[in-house]
């Protein structure tokens, strides 16, 4: 049987900024108010499509015996991006958005 990923018809919104991934060398944060659409596989949430500000920090620094080399790199992502996995952990940071709220958001953005 072939598995098909499906995009849900509901839209979620991040109630607060949160860290999506953190390790010694990298961190990825999702900004407050970011929107997310769940991705389903066999009726289970397996990931999200995010729309909103994300901040990626990577310490591209190498420690050598002769001193450190490199610099930290920071990048702001404001284009839609996809995440698969850890859906259950991420879901707690989102709440459902009503269609009215979505319309207001769209209107505000178009006025900018």
């Amino acid at each position, binding site marked *: 049987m072939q598995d098909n990923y499906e995009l849900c018809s509901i839209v979620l919104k991040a109630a607060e900024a949160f860290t999506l*991934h*953190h390790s010694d060398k*990298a961190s990825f944060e999702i900004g407050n108010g970011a929107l997310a659409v769940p991705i389903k596989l066999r009726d289970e949430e397996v990931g999200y499509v995010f729309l909103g500000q994300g901040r990626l920090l990577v*310490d591209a*620094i190498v420690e050598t015996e002769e*001193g450190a080399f490199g610099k*930290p790199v920071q990048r702001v992502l404001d284009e839609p991006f996809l995440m698969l*996995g850890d859906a259950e952990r991420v879901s707690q940071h989102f709440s459902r958005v009503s269609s009215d709220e979505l319309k207001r958001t769209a209107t505000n953005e178009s006025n900018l």
Partner: protein
Amino acid sequence: MKFAARAKLYIFRFQFDICQIWTDGLEIKYGENEMSDELKEEMRKLKEEMAGLKDQLKDMAGEGRGRRRGMYIDFGNSVQGYVDDVMQGVAEGVHGELEKSIFIGPGGCRMWRGHRHEREGEEEGKIDFGQTAKAMSALGQEHRLKVLDALMSGGKYINELQEELKDITTSTLSSHLDVLEEVGLVVQEKVRGRYLITMPGRTAYQMARQVSRFLEAGEEE
């Protein structure tokens, strides 16, 4: 096939009146049949145990609902893997660059002259006075030299530096670190927050040490 071959052999031997060997053969044969049943039983038990272990393994691997089917990507591990690959690439690049451009000897680091000539528009011996003055100005402070000295043994968090340099207040230490970072003698990791001494920082520290030795030698004379 094996049984048939062995049976033929026994008959052959019997025909040549080697009864004892034939009898021994029968006994062995009989014994093997008994062993075979035991082995079958052992095999059956082993199979049951293996099936149980497989189930346990499946349960352990499928703690997350999504992972049970082995279909989904663990986002954290994926990013970690990606970052590790990037860092490995950076490390290899740096290593290659070091090999071709910097000579590290007992006196410290220095540019390999042949490589420096390859750079377009760069005149031999020309000093960037502004940048050099800034770096030397950053070095011209006792506390900042102490900070560099503390970082020579490896990267440290600000509280570790504070612990080591008790005569410097936290706010003063932060401003010294900012100055050192601005001129590139120190770099701060943005994720973990550790401060590391850079290659120019190490060279500057070695230069300061040479100056100190020179002055000490002068005083002795």
